[in-house]
């Protein structure tokens, strides 16, 4: 079974393509002489399904990289980004930015605390200055700056 696990990618693409074809059909296809909104997406989805079906049969397993221990780290990194976005929405830029930089500098760059902490704080403040003060981007209200 695990020998065929790599076929999962084309399979997902194939299912996605077929789902999109069905969706597009519901949008009304029209005629070639007067195309409806669904015609073009239908053609694209058909091409996607066709190529995915071909890949399901001919694809080269050597093309797929194995999962490593690093993969778990990436999941953690993604989680930290997701939390960053949620916090950013609620309490502004500075605290989430410091936290995210700390996590990334400690976990992935393996910087010692004495480097990670100042880098994270200075980085967050500099980015705040660049984006908010210099470029005038309206970040959500910041609890540190009293919004």
């Amino acid at each position, binding site marked *: 079974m*695990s*020998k065929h*696990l*790599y*076929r*999962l*990618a*084309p*399979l*997902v*693409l194939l299912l*996605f393509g077929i789902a*999109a074809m069905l969706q597009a059909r519901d*949008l009304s296809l029209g*005629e*070639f*002489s007067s*195309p*409806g*909104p669904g015609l*073009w997406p239908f053609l*694209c989805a058909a091409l*996607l399904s066709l*190529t*995915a079906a071909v*890949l399901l049969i001919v694809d*080269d*397993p*050597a*093309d*797929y*990289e*194995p*999962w*490593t221990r*690093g*993969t778990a780290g*990436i999941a953690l*990194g*993604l989680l930290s*980004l997701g939390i*960053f*976005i949620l916090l*950013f*929405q609620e309490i502004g830029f500075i605290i989430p*930015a410091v936290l*995210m*930089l700390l996590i*990334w*500098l400690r976990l*992935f*760059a393996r*910087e010692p605390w004495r480097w990670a902490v100042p880098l994270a704080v200075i*980085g967050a403040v500099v*980015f705040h200055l660049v*984006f908010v003060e210099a*470029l005038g*981007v*309206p*970040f959500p209200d910041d609890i540190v700056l009293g919004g």
Partner: protein
Amino acid sequence: MGIADGLGEGFSVALDPTNILYVFIGVLIGTVIGVLPGLGPTATIALLLPLTYELEPVTSVILLAGIYYGSMYGGTITSVLLQLPGEAASVVTTFDGYQMAKQGRAGPALGIAAVGSFIGGTLAVVGLILLAPPLADLAVEFGAQEYVALTAFGILLVTYLGTKHPVKALCMAALGLLLATIGQDLTTGTGRFTFDQVELFDGLDFVAVAMGLFGVGEILYNLEKTEKAEQIKSRIKNIWPSRKDFKDSSGAIARGSVLGFFLGVLPGGGGVISSLASYGMEKRRAKDPSRFGKGAIEGVAGPETANNASSTSAFVPLLTLGIPPNVVLALIYGALLINGVQVGPQLIDTNPEIFWGVIASMFIGNLMLLALNIPLVGIFVQLLRVRGGILAAFALLITMAGVFSVNNDIFDMWVVLAFGVIGWLMKKTGFEPGPLVLAFVLGAILETNFRRAMITSDGQFDTFVTRPLSGTIFALMALVIVYSTVMGIRRQRRGRPPALYSDQLDAAAPHETAPGSEAEGTAGVGATGDRADGGGSPGATGGSTRAEP
């Protein structure tokens, strides 16, 4: 407007202090990211796209173009000193450049690369000036059929040239076209694939998609690779090449300029292919081909010239036809679109300041690069001490803050994150993001013109082949498909991968290399790629386009 008038206007734009500053920033950033492995021109330009909202259209193109051709210079440095290509187009330079460095000739190798790049870049600008206006005049005659033909040709070539698996690339192109249809239908106003989410009514934001796939996806992918700080052992001295070096490489530089120019104009061409082709050509022409791979200076001069020439000439199809020939140009095209500039045959007439300003800035930029590179190589090398992890942390924060600043919308941050995951999974499963993004950018043009052609021809498909111009292009497309299929089958019989240029790679490489074969280099550390057999595949590659809010 004649060439003299145009150049006059161009230089008046490019010599504006702000624009000079941005040329400088562009080529400097380009050189720096060219040196740093793991952050290529595609990722950098994607990450900096939000910045272009703040700039005049011409300034933003000047900046992004500077990053593109600057990275071609920068990638050379690490190829020569560490056998570590900073971006994909420099892979070829490692063959002879690193050997030269081992023989204590790192200086002349870097010097001739800088001089060759300057000559190649400058000659390509001249070619651009001569070729672009007549091409644009021709393109004014284009109807919907021709645009369908051209965009389809562009997508097809990007999927067939410079990718390892044409079917996989075509699959990604189809996905890109499909993703481009999300949002309101431009003709009828019907919402398509919006799932009643207000955020999706305007479609997916191009910037967010590109930043996710190239920026975040690339960073995540590199995170898995173990990395260590590199030490430079060879000292660099005598960077200015000797008279003999110049004599030996003058032919290679001349041929590299011409070859790079024409391969750059071709959709799907670009840096990687032109440097490979130039290396192959020099090796074939050499009296003693066995010198190659052992420190032949022509093997550095030719490819470096060619990749710079191609990065300039790639602007020809963009500025005259509105068709980006590779992924980097697709990003620059996107930057112009979000600034409200109509890119197409009329650009030279309606926005002469953009066309001529960018051209003039390239002269200045190439001059700056020559001035930056020869004396400052030692300083750029120090950049290698910056560890990838630190770079990744800050690049991610810039991405997140940057994408928010585009529409001041949290939703776009989720889109970046979702496409970051997709981009990472694509890399893990051998699907390339390049064709997807190119198709995503061209999707709207292709659809609009396809529907227009269908309506005017009353649904007859022969309208595409009976018109002389579009008929010719479709005939060319058929030729490419037949040719590459036949070649693919032949190669497979000989037990080689079914992709164009893979045989040149095999022939050129003295050791096992698998350069990142993207339409245009993103990470470019492919030479160290260690792909093992088997293993599980993730598979959410297609995934939903909806990011859960």
